[in-house]
């Protein structure tokens, strides 16, 4: 089941003064000087407030597995699985992201200021992923409840077997959009090269316009003309075995 609420409220920063005295409110890590394991280990420990990570230089798994209401800013391009499995944290990547950014995210927000490679937001259950540039192939593959907003285009087989959540594409979509889709709703402003099996265009009703407006606002694209978007979703023809298709097996 997908959710209709958008939780994009800023991460609640701690006001506990006793804690603030023992922990610096701002943590700064330089990946050119500190090993990634040490940085991620610190992020998994007792940490709060705002965290800045410099010089990622394409490293993998930057800020993966965080489970705390912190704000993490990464300055530079990251490698695979950045902010993967994220819970609660608001992660901003000032650069491009490699394969699988925010894969399996449960909650929180991940914002990529540049482009994202393949499988952005793969299998993610919750939270919001924003890619301000383009996302490559298989964006939102098997998404399970996450909201994804892409500022530009997405590559082929995006939302493949998508199960829940919403995917907004402000540009064009590559071939096979929404192939074998379950119940994710997809909104596309530009052209779709081709739709995958069982994915069809659907009418935009009032509740969809409202949902789209909320998603765009949450992602910082509040000025878009909603009438330029088309909704896509499941034709629900692949849900059940049809005896007429028996010869195909």
């Amino acid at each position, binding site marked *: 089941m997908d959710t209709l609420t958008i939780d994009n409220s800023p991460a609640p920063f701690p006001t506990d003064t006793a804690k603030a005295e023992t922990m610096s409110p701002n943590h700064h890590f330089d990946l050119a000087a500190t090993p990634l394991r040490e940085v991620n280990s610190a992020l998994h420990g007792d940490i709060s407030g705002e965290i800045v990570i410099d010089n990622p*230089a394409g490293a993998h798994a930057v800020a993966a597995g965080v489970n705390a209401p912190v704000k993490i800013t990464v300055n530079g391009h990251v*490698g695979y699985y950045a902010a993967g499995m994220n819970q609660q944290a608001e992660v901003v990547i000032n650069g*491009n992201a*490699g394969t699988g950014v925010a894969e399996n995210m449960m909650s929180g927000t991940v914002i990529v200021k540049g*482009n994202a490679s*393949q499988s952005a937001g793969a299998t993610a259950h919750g939270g919001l992923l924003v890619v301000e540039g383009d996302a*490559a192939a298989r964006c939102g593959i098997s998404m399970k409840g996450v909201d994804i907003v892409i500022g530009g285009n997405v*590559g*082929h087989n995006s939302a493949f077997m998508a199960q829940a959540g919403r995917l907004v594409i402000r540009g064009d979509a590559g071939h096979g959009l929404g192939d074998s889709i379950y119940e994710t709703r997809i909104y596309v402003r530009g052209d779709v090269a081709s739709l995958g099996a069982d994915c069809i265009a659907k009418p935009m009703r009032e509740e969809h316009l409202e949902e789209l407006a909320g998603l765009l606002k949450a992602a910082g694209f509040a000025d878009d003309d909603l009438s330029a978007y088309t909704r896509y979703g499941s034709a629900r023809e692949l849900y059940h075995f049809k005896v007429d298709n028996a010869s195909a097996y």
Partner: protein
Amino acid sequence: MCGIVGLHLRNPELHPRLGAMLAEMLGEMQDRGADSAGIAVYGNPEWAPPGHGCVSLLELDVVPDEVASTLGAAVGVPVAAQLVDTTLVVSAPVPAEELLGAARAAYPDALIAGFGADLTVLKGVGAPRDLTESWGLAHASGWQGVGHTRMATESAVTPSGAHPYAVGPEQCLVHNGSFSNHATIRRELRAEGVEFDSENDTEVGARFVAHQLAAGKDVETALKEVCATFDGFYTLVVSNHDSFAVVRDAIACKPAVIAETDDWVAIASEYRALAKLPGVENARIWEPEPEVVYAWTR
């Protein structure tokens, strides 16, 4: 897994730094494959004197001086031979094919790693960073280089299983991925008289491309033929004396990142291999689209 890198320099001022840049890129890809590695360098005068034909030989247990005199007697001019780690690099002021013919006749069991004008191909078994150190790659100059770090899946960990595959004059191919129908294509190419050095899938790709180019097709057409003929997952870099090209399969699950500045064009399996290149912070960075051939010529 495997890692690939390619660097094509546009600014001649960077030529003395080619090897250092390539070594950094290759070292960063060691995590993607650490059982063997190889490089091709175009235009390093220490290994490939300008205007000379060059041949790189592996699995040859003969001292360089003896190789030089044997091949010199065969081609009728002095031949230079030096051992760069385990690769024997020979050159002479004759066309590369002539030197290659002499080497094949004198040492039929040697593995031809590569041949052509200005081209040196070095490969070996071991960790990529150790190999680049043994080759002295950081001191090499040139205008173009490609490299590969291997995590073997399709054939044995041997020098003949390491990339690049440089099977046509000045041509080189490195591959991140795997071909699934290589046995069929190898059989077809063998039926047309093409000879193979290994059971490696990538060698089939390289022989296929060389076969296409020898038939007069251009690189772009040859690579489109690869897309139409080969089944599997691949990102390929195909270099020639003055050019290099990149292509990915239709599924495009094997990674590739291209970065371009006024001074250079670079490709790697991952961005981190490009992260130390001069001026990368202002480079145009993108991922190649599936089945689109990208090519650069100097």
